[in-house]
């Protein structure tokens, strides 16, 4: 009868958080080890989370739909289950709603406990979700710094010290709390972006009335900054904020950007936001909208507005800035009737990635068409052979082959721009992403080292990846590391498209359907199987001329596919 907390496990390389899509258990349920208790969606894949214990669930720490950082406590179990205690708790304090705010739940649990003497239920109250661990070895930090770490829910053992001999300073802890090591309960970047975007929205509505219509339409940085300043006029404006983890959670729950909340206290000379501050700010929010609006109108010139926001360059703000269109369009949506579908999960991930790509990389598109007669013949011939071995050979592997061959000759199309380093990375491998339409939305599994694989192997691998993407059984790491993406618009229909680059790749290739079209052969219009295709390239890395040369080479290889044998 021991309480055990369970943290969201590592979901894959480089993945810091996931959306808790669904709970498959409720508080009070008895679970077996390895029984799936939750589904968490990360970077386009759905991960099933197994129970680490035999026992009963005493508490779920997050609501469905919440973004949960890796290592945050998601559930509390009672191991070697005490049925009675579990049932008792179930009937009193385990509704999903109550779990939203840790503070409230803790209080509930404590109350229940006082009444039901003999159950160790307020363990949950004691073991607050953000409790930071005490490292077993020597820690190089002063007592006050360690206390700060505990207050911010930071694992002091994970903080890199900047002081003499690697000693950890208070500033290191705070930086850690703001950075990679997101403390439990803090809404991560995605959420913050949403909050900022929502705030920007409000301001944009009113700005549009006066002078900024054009600017908003353009979606220029200036316009965005101006909108940001609208928020700043009524609210605090910090790029980081001290607050307890529970306060961060509260802010997230109320959709409040913590950095915008005026602080009523100070800790070590820095503004410290309390739960009351957050509530007060959230309460003001609704009528505050008009206040914000007049604030913007008052700030007559763009210059003024800009100067107020100059230093704001955090990642959160940037992601808000990267989706300016939404702010403008969303202006009068708040009251619009219609069905409301939560913007989350795969849909939101796609949205965020597309927005990032489109607003980061200047796209230039290129379209072309070639005579696919030989390709059709060769495909028919080889597909028949492959079929006897149980492999379904489509046109796609041929296209992959042609592309990797051409990429070897045009390294800038198999590249990425490392903006922070100011360097272009010419990739040394050819990992080709294949866009797959699934019920949940677009997914792009990656065929690693596609250049080293034969047609049959490519066909098999693509089929397997696509199938698992549709079943949502694909692992996050199988969708990472791509260097170029192919999308097949021909499957559903259409002739050309303007595909969005799978950022930070340099280019994307959209193949259209092969069908009979009028084609001029020896000055005669004849019906020929042709393929039309489109490409988008990042103009920062690739000029239109290079795109065209690359396209010509692909065309050449596909129009005379026997040439692929040479490569």
């Amino acid at each position, binding site marked *: *009868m*021991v*309480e055990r907390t369970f943290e969201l496990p590592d979901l894959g390389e480089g993945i810091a958080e996931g959306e808790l899509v669904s709970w498959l258990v409720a508080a009070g349920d008895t679970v077996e080890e390895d029984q799936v208790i939750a589904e968490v969606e990360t970077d386009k894949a759905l991960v099933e989370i197994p129970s680490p214990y035999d026992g009963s669930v005493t508490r779920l720490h997050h609501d469905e739909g919440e973004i949960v950082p890796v290592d945050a406590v998601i559930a509390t179990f009672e191991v070697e289950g005490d049925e009675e205690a579990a049932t008792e708790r179930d009937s009193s304090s385990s509704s999903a709603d109550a779990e939203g705010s840790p503070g409230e739940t803790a209080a509930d649990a*404590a109350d229940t*406990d*006082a009444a039901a*003497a*003999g*159950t*160790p239920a*307020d*363990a949950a*109250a*004691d*073991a*607050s979700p953000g*409790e*930071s*661990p*005490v*490292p077993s*070895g*020597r*820690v*190089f*930090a*002063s*007592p006050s710094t*360690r*206390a700060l770490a*505990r*207050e911010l*829910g930071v694992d*002091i053992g994970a903080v890199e010290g900047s*002081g*003499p*001999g*690697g*000693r*950890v300073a208070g500033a290191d802890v705070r930086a850690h709390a703001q950075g990679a090591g997101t403390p439990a309960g803090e809404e991560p970047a995605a959420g913050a972006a949403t909050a900022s975007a929502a705030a920007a929205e409000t301001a944009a509505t009113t700005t549009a009335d006066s002078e900024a219509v054009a600017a908003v339409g353009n979606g220029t940085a200036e316009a965005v900054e101006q909108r940001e300043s609208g928020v700043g006029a009524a609210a605090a404006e910090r790029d980081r904020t001290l607050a307890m983890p529970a306060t961060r959670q509260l802010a997230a729950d109320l959709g409040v950007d913590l950095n915008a909340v005026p602080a009523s206290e100070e800790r070590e000379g820095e503004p410290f936001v309390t739960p009351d501050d957050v509530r007060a700010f959230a309460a003001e929010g609704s009528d505050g909208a008009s206040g914000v609006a007049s604030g913007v109108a008052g700030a007559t010139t763009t210059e003024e507005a800009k100067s107020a926001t100059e230093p704001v360059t955090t990642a959160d703000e940037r992601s808000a800035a990267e989706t300016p269109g939404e702010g403008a369009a969303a202006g009068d949506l708040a009251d619009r009737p219609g069905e409301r579908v939560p913007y989350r999960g795969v849909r939101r991930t796609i949205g965020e990635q597309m927005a990032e790509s489109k607003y980061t990389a200047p796209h230039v598109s290129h379209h072309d068409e070639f005579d696919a007669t030989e390709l059709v013949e060769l495909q028919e011939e080889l597909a028949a052979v492959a079929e006897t071995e149980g492999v379904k050979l489509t046109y796609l592997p041929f296209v992959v082959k042609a592309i990797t061959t051409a990429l070897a000759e045009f390294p800038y199309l198999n590249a990425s721009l490392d903006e922070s380093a100011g360097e272009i990375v010419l990739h040394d491998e050819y990992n080709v992403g294949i866009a797959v339409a699934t019920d949940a939305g677009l997914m792009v599994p990656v065929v690693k080292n596609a250049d080293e694989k034969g047609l049959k192997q490519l066909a098999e691998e693509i089929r397997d990846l696509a199938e698992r993407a549709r079943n949502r059984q694909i692992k996050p790491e199988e969708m990472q590391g791509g260097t170029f993406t192919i999308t097949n618009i021909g499957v559903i229909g259409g002739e050309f498209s303007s595909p969005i680059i799978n950022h930070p790749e340099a280019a994307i290739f959209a193949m259209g359907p092969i069908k009979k079209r009028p084609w001029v052969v020896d000055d005669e219009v004849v019906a020929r199987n042709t393929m039309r295709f489109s490409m988008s390239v990042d103009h920062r890395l690739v000029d239109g001329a290079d795109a065209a040369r690359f396209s010509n080479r692909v065309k050449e290889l596909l129009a005379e596919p026997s040439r692929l044998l040479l490569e």
Partner: protein
Amino acid sequence: MVMGDIATATDLLVIGAGPGGYVAAIRGAQLGLDTTLVEKDAYGGACLNRGCIPSKAFIHGADVAHEAGNAEEMGIHADPAIDMLQMQEWKSDVVDQLTSGVEKLCKANGVSLLEGTAAFEDEHTARIAHGGEGQGMETVEFEHAVIATGSRPIQIPGFDFADDPVLSSSQLLQMESVPDRLVVVGAGYIGMELSTMLTKLGTEVTVVEMLDDVLPAYEADVKRIVRKRAEELGIDFHFGEGATGWEETADGVLVSTETEAGDVSQYEGDAVLVAVGRQPVTDTMELDAIGLEPNDAGFIETDDRARTDVENVFAVGDVAGEPMLAHKASAEGIVAAEVAAGEPAALDQQAIPAAVFTDPEIATVGLTEDDAADAGFDPVVGEMPLRASGRALSMGESDGFVRIVADEASEIVLGGQIVGPNASEIVAEVALAVEMSATLEDVAGTVHTHPTLAEAVMEAAENAQGQAIHTLNR
């Protein structure tokens, strides 16, 4: 619950008013918890009443007498007479002042005091039996409980503290006259402190110890100085002998010992002091009623928040594990109360200093050179012998040294070992350095008062850096 019981509800029930318990209670009350402190006999616990404080009072008294009588070199000729009853009275005044201070502090902070012995009924209920028969019981319902029941002296087979000539350390500190001869079983820190003190008061002390040296927990060069001084004072040590029994003689006791090889010896004394250590008190509060049981070593296990396996029940101090030191208990008591109040406190102390009030004193904190190497550091060590200290020489106390252990790469101070007069005071600086992760440069760069013993800490840090002024750099 028994009919007629009075039921009281409290946020925080603290069992035991020693340095762990009373500190937990006061901090709990400071944080707004309704706090109840249960104590069966004396506020301040063993430390204030039967341990640290009375023993230090006697040690100081013995030092005054001994120094006065042994200062011919300084031109002082005296032959002090000891009035033990008067010294007891003085000691009692000291203790009373402290214990009544604890009681007043508790009350001033709003802690409810209950006299009696607490036993658990379940995880939220305890029964308090008031002292003495017919005094009644009451039931306390609590949100959180802190077990701070401390420890008691260990008895060994054949030596029952109920028998008159067999004394525990607590009983010895109640003595009304200075014994002429005393056999001491155990050369740990309690045995060594009391043997030294009594020798200075004029007792002929014979120490029998099962191990082959004094103070098993300390490094050879540390304990060598203390053992040598004890021998010079006239303590008769017999190592490798275990006490097997005693018999009453016409003028005292005859204590029998046996070596591993089976050689038997006998030592005469007016009484025999058994000081082989202390054991946690876990048998008074019916732990099994809340599903707890002591571990193999007899302690209640706790996590880094001072919580036991029952999450609303904490354990602090001697009952919660080694080292059995009052200041460790207080530190744990504060954490327990803060965690109970929902504060983000934790037991993350980097080091618990320890002091032995022998002649000279020993004080240590953090890692020794060997510990540091075992922990994976590349240790660098600096030392200052007290014979190079002007202050030590001017006190006539030049035996001993200050040693600093640091990590070679980062130069962060990892620990220190001090032997010498006032070592127990000097160690505080090293403890601060360890806890703050100060570097050798931080310590060496801090200007120290001259002439003091504390200068030796600075000098040792400089020595570790290879740039000491007053000692040869190794």
